[in-house]
């Protein structure tokens, strides 16, 4: 086991897959000369050269579409968005071209491409630069959406994503790039669509992913255990689509209570979909209505206190867990 940062884990995944498959290349804003806006691609230009590590102009629709076209005829691009916020100007390319190509071409052409970069809020970046957009991508048939919360998962899932024959939306977190974690030595991959019980528990099932899990949920879980002896089973789906419903259903059948914590907005959020699936498949097992903790349904403000008040917090998560236990 080695200890690496999240940016190193992602860098290793890209580097190893480029060594494995010469069709893989990386492009995006500042990925080459600058070594990555968040230094994720550090050293890759020096190792692989400008043919396979390409700085693009600030033109997300252009380079996302270029990636789709290259993938249609056999290359396997990794397209970095400096943040997923900027993917919105490439939304047509991702939704209409990447996601639908296989179906609309009747199976003639597929698009093996990974779109990746950080999503969600950092600190004080305000409404346009702080969005958790997984639900709008998970909504689209043809896309898979992957969101790791650990270094180990990030590397294994990204390697799998690069080898997958479908278009992948791989959402990281800017504030996690410096997080350290253990990764296995040598080659490993993690399958998409398979969640993981990150901590077994008996009282409440809590589903969360990515940065909110890594930076917020764990603190709430620890304090609830220490202060109130509440045993929480924490599930990280790791892949938002396809969602590992079976894992969640199995856990809820054991704990009879479910809390879903996500950074995105509440309306038509990922948690709403999970909640529906549970009410459909495990209704008789529930001892309380499913609780969701989401961002408030507002554009995220800049001012620090307003920002904190809008996002999922330890206090909100504690309140939700206590509510499903009727201990509020």
């Amino acid at each position, binding site marked *: 086991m080695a200890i690496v940062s999240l940016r190193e884990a992602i860098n290793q995944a890209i580097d190893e897959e480029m060594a494995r498959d010469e069709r893989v*290349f990386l492009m995006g804003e500042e990925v080459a000369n600058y070594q990555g806006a968040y230094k994720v691609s550090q050293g890759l230009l020096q190792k692989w050269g400008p*043919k396979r590590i*390409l700085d*693009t*102009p600030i*033109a997300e*629709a*252009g*380079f*996302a*579409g*270029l*990636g*789709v*076209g*290259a*993938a*249609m*005829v*056999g*290359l396997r*691009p990794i397209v970095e968005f400096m943040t997923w916020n900027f993917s919105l*100007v490439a939304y*047509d*390319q991702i939704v*209409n*071209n990447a996601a639908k190509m*296989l*179906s*609309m*071409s*009747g*199976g*003639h*052409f*597929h698009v*093996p491409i990974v779109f990746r970069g950080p999503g969600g809020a950092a600190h004080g970046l305000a409404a346009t630069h702080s969005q958790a957009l997984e639900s709008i991508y998970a909504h689209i*048939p*043809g896309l*898979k959406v992957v969101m790791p919360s650990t270094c180990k998962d990030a590397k*294994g899932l990204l*390697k*799998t*994503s*690069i*080898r*997958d*024959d*479908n278009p992948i939306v791989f959402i990281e977190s800017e504030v996690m790039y410096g997080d350290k974690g253990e990764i296995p030595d040598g080659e490993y*991959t*993690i*399958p*998409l*669509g398979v969640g993981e019980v990150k901590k077994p528990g008996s009282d409440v099932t809590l589903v969360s992913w990515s940065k909110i899990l890594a930076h917020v949920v764990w603190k709430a879980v620890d304090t609830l255990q220490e202060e109130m002896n509440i045993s929480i089973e924490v599930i990280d789906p790791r892949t938002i689509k396809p969602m590992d419903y079976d894992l969640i259903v199995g856990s809820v059948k054991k704990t009879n209570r479910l809390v879903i914590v996500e950074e995105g907005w509440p309306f038509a959020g990922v948690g709403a979909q999970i909640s529906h699936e549970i009410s459909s498949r495990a209704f008789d097992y529930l001892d309380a209505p499913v609780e969701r903790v989401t961002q408030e349904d507002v554009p995220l403000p800049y001012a620090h206190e307003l920002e904190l008040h809008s996002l999922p917090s330890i206090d909100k998560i504690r309140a939700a867990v206590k509510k499903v236990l009727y201990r509020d």
Partner: protein
Amino acid sequence: MNTATTFASSKQRTSRLLGLSPDTVMSWYDDMLLVRRFEEKCAQLYGMGRIMGFCHLYNGQEAVSTGAIKGAITREDYVITAYRDHGQAISKGVDPRKILAELLGKYTGTTKGKGGSMHIFDRETNFLGGHAIVGGHIPLAAGVAFAIKYREEKKVCLCFMGDGATNIGAFHEGLNLAGLWKLPVIYIIENNKYGMGTAVGRASAVEELHKKALAYNMYSEVVDGMDVLDVYKKVKAVADRAKETYEPALLEIETYRFRGHSMSDPIHGHYRSKEEVERLRKSDPIIMFGETLKEEGVATDQDFEEAEKRIKKIVDECVEFTENSPEPPLEELWKDVYMERSGA
């Protein structure tokens, strides 16, 4: 004078067949005629309610697909286009029976009835669609060309678009990348004077659309889209060069849409006059090419009559094939949404 709606007569334009063999030029005549008669059959079937949705016909623009695709490039080269795609697919060699079957939503169609008129695809002939979001395919073409260069192949990608597509962001981002990275793609504007019902001058600050290439350091040229030989000659020059040097180009091919924007639209309506349509229909690219062939002693009226019979037989076969084809089975609904192969 409005140059956008004026064409020189064929006799002034060309009297030579560029050293091409009679068989070659007659095969082009057949190709143009097939596109025309195929589209007329589509219009008929649309009128009968057999073709659903949007259906954009290519009548009047046949010299473009024939000259550029059947003439100037090979089967290994790529073609990607917008929604007015039947003609380009036929010229690329896509089986017209499968195209018609697709239009009627049959399982034997080019995409098993998944795409319809606006989304013709065919891997076998490197026909990459059929794209219905205006301009959305223009960056894709840059990507196809990127892959050609990445693999150091001697191929080219032709990317067709309408005049209306030159105003959307994807056009500018795609051309900038192609120009910046020197990608072997030939962007072809089929300037048929109107984006749906909006004249070029009412939509673009620059009416001479080829000038947009200047912003992307890209070679450009104006082409007479009613003259299949001019289309062939100019597309071939830039396509051949792209295969050697990876230099992209932008061609503005002046053409005219003899019918409405789609089958749901009138042929003239409020946005263009009946007189304009009648005048420009006199520049019919098939008739003019036929005249050239006669003047050059390659064909006689009898040859054209025989061509009509040959083409009618093909179109009849398309109809027969389609009528005898099954609807897609319901289980097809869930197929081709995801590729099965997962990475791990």
